[in-house]
């Protein structure tokens, strides 16, 4: 399958690959997808308590080039945003930015799911802390 130059670039030279400490109270972690479906994305964000902005975003992805590219791009976009703003990242924008072919649009949907789940995990940690 022929992919856009951006997909090839992001999948061969991924930005923001790696892991953050999931136990850190400022880190939100998402693990979405399934091996059987062909894609699993782990996305993590670390929010700087002083600024309220996402200071770090890291991903690890099991999947094809477009899945890796979409994960890398969503991590890049989340960087420097507030968690609320990051949760507004739209899959359509990811798909457009990477010129994903129709058969691979689900990768952008999974990437959106990942950032939303990471933000939700972070929020639940904050809420639990507030309640305690």
């Amino acid at each position, binding site marked *: 399958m022929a992919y856009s130059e951006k997909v090839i670039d992001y999948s061969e030279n991924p930005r923001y690959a790696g892991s953050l400490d999931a136990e850190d109270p400022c880190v939100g972690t998402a693990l979405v997808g399934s091996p*059987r479906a062909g*894609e699993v994305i782990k996305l993590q964000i670390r929010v700087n308590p002083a600024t309220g902005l996402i200071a770090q975003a890291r991903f690890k992805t099991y999947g094809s080039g477009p899945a890796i590219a979409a994960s890398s791009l969503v991590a890049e976009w989340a960087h420097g945003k507030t968690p609320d703003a990051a949760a507004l990242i739209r899959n359509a924008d990811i798909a457009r930015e990477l010129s994903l072919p129709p058969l691979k649009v689900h990768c952008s949907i999974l990437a959106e799911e990942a950032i939303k789940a990471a933000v939700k995990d972070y929020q639940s940690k904050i809420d639990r802390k507030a309640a305690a």
Partner: protein
Amino acid sequence: MAESQLPVYLDYGATTPCDPRVVDAMVPWLRAHFGNPASRTHAWGWEAEEAVEQARGHVAGLIGADPREIVWTSGATESTNLAIKGAAEAYEAKGRHFITLKTEHKATLDTMRELERRGCDVTFLDVEPDGLVNLERLKAALRVDTVLVSILWVNNEIGVIQDIAAIGALCRERGVLLHVDAAQATGRVAIDVQQLPIDLMSMTAHKTYGPKGIGALYVRRKPKVRLVSQMHGGGHERGLRSGTLPTHQIVGMGEAFRLIQGEMHEVDVHARMLQQRLLAGLSDLGEVIVNGSLEHRVPQNLNMSFKYVEGEALMAGLHGLAVSSGSACTSASMEPSYVLKALGRSDELAHSSLRMTTGRFTTIEEIDFAIQTIRATVQRLRELSPLWELHEQGVDVDAMQWEAAHQE
């Protein structure tokens, strides 16, 4: 690799290059010696017929057959069609039941499906986890109305070698015909139809350093196997397969089979050395699975799955390497290989498999390049893989519950 920009070719199971000596033998039959072997009235025809008969002798020679038992076809697919459909029609009075394996080549599976559409009953047998036939299961599947059993001698994807002697003996005992698809077997395993109870055998030239577009069907004379022709016309090949014989192709197949007969031993030794090197070079990546029996396998084939990496990304990462994957055969739909599924592999392990097939022209340097490329790609993708990370942390990834909702 240095003098060529072409990728390293490890896909001999798909097709082999023509041996240069084969090409040399073919060319005259395209130039001055262009006659139709069926022309009886002039020298062009006579010499072409002689060349065709000489080639028939070479093909027969490789398998221990009588030349009169060789029927020229366009390849193994046509041979298989002729064998199965031809026997189904010829033995209709005996019965309408057929047996084959789930791991057969599409040429057999699709032909059997056609028989089903015509009202026949076909049993598609499971294989053992190592890809081999379970003889007891085969025995139990045989019926009084079973006409024919069709078995792939050397599996095209996993290279496992079926025990044709035992299968044939079982068929003989029950009076059932045995068709063997030997497309991947010629030049790789020793074949002697005088010793083996094979009734029909499909062959092709292009997997054994001959040209594409030519094959043959072995049809046993004693005891005689009857077939109904599937290609009607001028009555060539004793009425079994009409159509003008392509002299140059036939000469090419004959020469390829003649050459491999004399050189099989050295080809085999070379292949074994390469297979061991490739296996050793990839095994210590860890979490790799060899698909199919290693023991009962042609040395030219290695098929491995790499856990925790995704198949498409793996394939895309192998720059400079021409191999097949467990989803390449039907790649338009990205369906996982039905052969690997039949061995019990999951979809993801089937997708993340590589079929590496070597040949007589494969070098040690090419194998080392392949090892290096595959290792680097698997390691890079595992570094990126959350599944590998979980595995490294001691989590049993296979036992995890995944939400698969988003896919539907």
